[in-house]
């Protein structure tokens, strides 16, 4: 049984979220979404805003030390309020690479890596920037970012839903590519689509191991970006719902990584080079989207998520109180726990009258069902391997309040507060990021 996310006034709603985390109002979003269907590139405003922000409370993951929040939260020094340089800062998510020997080469040669998953294609590519960048894009770091010539190397993140659009985009941004250049590639589709990519872009393809890339990505982001991981606290107000969870580079390992893509992979990570896929599940983003598509008119993932935000699962799920009339104290089951997902949708062949369920309610129930289950699996594997930190990656969560609330709740509930769900700002780009950094891939012939 999982927790219900009862629609309450405190639920993060499009209108109630802090300004810089604000979701695009539903109506506008719908338009966006429909446009995307035709030609527009996918936009991910919430994600982008969070990725570009650095103004949350920080609680050290290892010590629990709280570092003061950067002042002037209310002043919102967002990309807009920093006058000159911000205008040149990319509008899509990015991180600045620290100025060091390893990354120095990217000043001259661009690097592109793609992670082709079951549903989405994620791209990470480098670019060079002359100007100052807003402070928050340093992700809490005070390291040296600019090279002597004042240039900075940026890593940009972008996602696509189909290959043609990706190729078109790469042709446009990767202008300095030569026939000898390589594109780093990972994910299941790196096998299936390697020939098309090589042919279309006229480059060679270097395939990096999927798991290795994932771990490389997490490792790099956690150790480079102080503000990479964060927790979600549903009952807090406004910006306090989010807290950064920085971790010292030497304390990162071991941890559990739950990668939620189309399906789910659960990895036990002991070091950047020692990791193991300990489990997985077939109920992931693909299931939410698949069942959601069958049962609601939603056109894509974001629309389905947005629908779920408006739904009330209590109309389709059976709660403990629906069965027992209240809490089941003997077993310690609270009245509002979900006893059976979708359990109200079967009439047991009894009532002939056609019951209709609102698609929003179904979407909400599906989201809770899948995310509760992921949370429970994460808890089970975390406990079995005695790992207290569980990071979630993959392109499923998208900073969605219901998803994060459910995942956090499930883990907290099952572990009795022992384990925390940790989210990653660049959750969807772990594999692509790792592939970007991995020099040891195999060239495809």
């Amino acid at each position, binding site marked *: *049984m*999982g927790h219900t996310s009862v629609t309450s006034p405190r639920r993060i709603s499009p209108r109630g979220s802090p300004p810089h985390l604000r979701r695009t109002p539903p109506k506008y979003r719908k338009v966006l979404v429909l446009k995307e269907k035709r030609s527009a590139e996918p936009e991910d405003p919430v994600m982008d805003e969070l990725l570009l922000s650095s103004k949350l409370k920080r609680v050290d993951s290892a010590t629990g030390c709280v570092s003061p929040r950067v002042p002037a939260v209310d002043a919102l020094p967002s990309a807009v309020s920093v006058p000159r340089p911000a205008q040149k800062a990319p509008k899509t998510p990015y991180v600045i690479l620290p100025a060091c020997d390893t990354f120095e080469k990217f000043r001259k040669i661009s690097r592109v890596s793609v992670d082709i*998953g*079951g*549903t989405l294609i994620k791209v990470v590519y480098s670019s060079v920037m002359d100007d100052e960048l807003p402070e928050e894009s340093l992700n809490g770091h005070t390291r040296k970012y600019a090279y002597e010539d004042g240039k900075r190397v940026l890593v940009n993140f972008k996602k696509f839903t189909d290959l043609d659009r990706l190729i078109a985009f790469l042709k446009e941004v990767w202008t300095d590519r030569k026939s000898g250049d390589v594109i780093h590639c990972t994910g*299941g*589709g790196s*096998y*299936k689509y390697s020939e098309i990519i090589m042919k279309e872009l006229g480059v060679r393809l270097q395939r990096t191991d999927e798991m290795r890339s994932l771990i490389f990505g997490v490792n790099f982001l956690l150790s480079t970006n102080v503000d990479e991981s964060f927790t979600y606290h549903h009952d807090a107000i406004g910006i306090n719902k989010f807290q950064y969870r920085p971790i010292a580079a030497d304390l990162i390992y071991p941890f559990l990584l739950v990668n939620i893509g*189309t*399906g789910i992979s659960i990895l036990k990570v002991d070091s950047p080079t020692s990791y193991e896929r300990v*489990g997985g*599940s*077939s*109920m*992931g*983003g*693909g*299931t939410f*989207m*698949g*069942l959601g*598509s*069958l*049962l609601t*008119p939603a*056109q894509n993932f974001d629309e389905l998520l947005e629908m779920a935000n408006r739904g009330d699962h209590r109309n*389709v*799920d*059976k709660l403990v109180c*629906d*069965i*027992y*009339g209240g809490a089941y104290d003997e*077993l*310690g089951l609270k009245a509002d*726990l*979900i*006893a*059976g*997902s*979708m*359990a*109200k*949708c*079967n*009439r*047991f*062949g009894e009532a002939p009258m056609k019951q209709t*369920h609102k698609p929003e309610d179904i979407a909400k129930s599906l989201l809770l*069902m899948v995310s*509760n*289950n992921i949370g*429970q*699996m994460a808890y*089970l*594997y975390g*406990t*079995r391997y005695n790992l207290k930190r569980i990071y979630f990656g993959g392109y499923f969560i998208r900073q969605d309040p219901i998803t994060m609330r459910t995942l956090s709740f499930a883990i907290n509930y*099952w572990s009795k507060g022992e384990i925390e769900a940790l989210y990653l700002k660049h959750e969807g780009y772990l594999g692509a990021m790792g592939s970007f950094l991995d020099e040891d891939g195999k060239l495809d012939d």
Partner: protein
Amino acid sequence: MDTAQRNIDFHRLVRDAPLINHICFDACSKTVKIIYSSTVPLSHTTLDRKRVDTEKSEDRIYCIQVQYPDFPLILQFFGDTCPLLKGTTVDFVVTASQNAEIEEVIRKALDVKLRHVEAFTGLVNGTSFLLRNIEAESFTYSFDESQKYEFQTLNTESIYPYLLINIRTGVSVVLVDGPNKFQRLGGSSIGGASFLGLSELITGVNDIEEMMDRALKGSPEEFDIFIRDIYGDRAANFNMDPHLLAASFGRVTRAQTIRRAGEFDDQSKNNAILSLLRMVLYNVSQIAFMLSEMSNVKRVFFNGFLVRNRPIVMKTLSFACNYWSGGKLKACFLRHENYTTGLGAFLEGCPNADMYWKEYCSGSTALGRFVPVEPLETGFKTQTFALKCARFKAAPFCLLVDKDGKPDAIDFNTDDEARDFWIQILDNTIAQLTELAIASQSGCPDQEDVISRAKDFEHDFVKTMDTIKEHHVAYGNSNARNLLEVREQILQEKGFDDIYVQKKHEEKLSAVSELPTVLASIDKLKEAGDEKAVVEYVSRCLLAGNVFDWGAKEVVKLMSSEEGLSFQSAIERVENRPWLFDGFDSYYKKHKEYKSVLIFVDNSGYDYILGVIPFARELLRNGAKVIICANTLPALNDLTYREMIELAPELKKADADLAKFIDSEQLMFVQSGQESPCLDARRVHEDLNTVVQKYETDLVIIEGMGRALHTNFNVKFKCDTLKAAVIKTQWLADRLQGKMFSVVFKHELGTK
């Protein structure tokens, strides 16, 4: 169909109805389970062929399951025929909040008060109760296409700890550590009702049986994404099975146009239901596996309305458990899982709940104990399950090496030829047995009743055999022991408690009169001083005695012939050494070392008196303690404990040595707790274990075909054993590559 058309014979369905003294209702979503008990007075057949009441009675528990439309009919029947229930308090299992209506109906129809019983405790206690008592209650199902069942019999100690995965609306996982010790480890909201709900939303199908039929015809390829879809054919490089499910319903959004649920054709509906079923069951088994790892549990039982012996569900769960655990964990199921909650709730107030309860297979309806594939909810098919209280506590025989190991030499579940042969044999003897049953009570004034009961026996037995012919796993394990036991049970149920009572008596009289002669010839040998000759002679006596067996067709022919069969001619019939299995020398070498010997005896009459007693007498004379163990209840012409006790004074009269041994308790008698011509050492009377432990038994002698060949032939014991029998069927002789009257005299050293 209306009631009249169905012509329900309620008295056949609700057994012992007028004697019902307590009842418990477990109202589930589709069916009501009724658990009730009655105390039935027992009768016994006398030597002058009459049937008289004894002071004894037997406690029985029956479980019936009916559908809601039929519930009022059954209730009315209870109200009309069960006077003992009026004004009492009956149990009602609280599983849902909307039961008020049903409660009211029950109160009115039966004129009773209701006591609410908590469902969860009932579930756990009922499951433990069944596992502890019922033979072959637990089973595993094959995850390939072979549809094989494998049954396990567990005992009080070996069942714990186990995980119970209850798939109802949601899923509950319970860790059961011991009797009344359990905790809910967790659960999931993705359970049976999620499957039903999503199936109905997507396909519009709302009947679970139709869903199961459709799932069988479905293919997961339409909606699910597999590893090979993501990685192509190179998936093998990652040590991941390309056919592994990667994402349930992941394929839906990959198509150019998304199909909505309303547009599905029949095949798509089947496919969607299969994908849903797999999604739910894989998830449940993954949680079960993880929790079993974390709590270090080796056995996981799945039950709940979604499971219910449905082949596709069991296969999927078995496959998933095997996959997640790398073959370590097996999904187990229960044969009577639908009664666990009700039974457990019922037992809360049952004074004999701790006793040993046996499955009363003959008390089950024509469906048998459980018939797979036949869905329960078709027509008015109730399923019943009957138990009887053995009035003692049973435990595995303490000298068994593997306390859960099967005693049977031949498993009819896998050996079709043996099964067919045995059913044939039993079918052939049925007419003769019916005649014998009638003859055994020919002194009863109401002969019509005797004949009608005998015909009932014949009818029920033939039907039972037919059921096994059709579904050989219908009674769990089928083997010689079970088939013979079912026959005895049906006879008992029809009021024929001991059809051989007169025959046994006659043979006893003649054997007792011959005893002094046999003992004298032994003593004569003894005086000659050839110890080995003496031991071989008493061994031949033991084997010769075993030739007298009313259970063996060939011997019955000899005994029924004009000249009859004398003990002396039987001794001559015993083949000369070397025997087919000849452990004589090995036994002779050690025979003086044994200080405490336990003998499981077989037939009464010659077998016991002229075979076992002289053999035991030699052991006693060597200074060993001898404990003779006989069946608790009659089976064929086997010796019963009561008969053995009654015989003791006559043995004392016949021989001074025997008198000395009996008086000094150097020779003792004990009951096995069994009521079958075979011996299932996994469930013996606790008294047996007490004496065996007290006197530190160092040799176990098992005598007779039923106990030493059909069962226990391959069973290992902690102390030395002697398994002695004469082969009296051609078929078995062929199998063991011997001939008729070949000797099995197996001496095995204990595995300490």
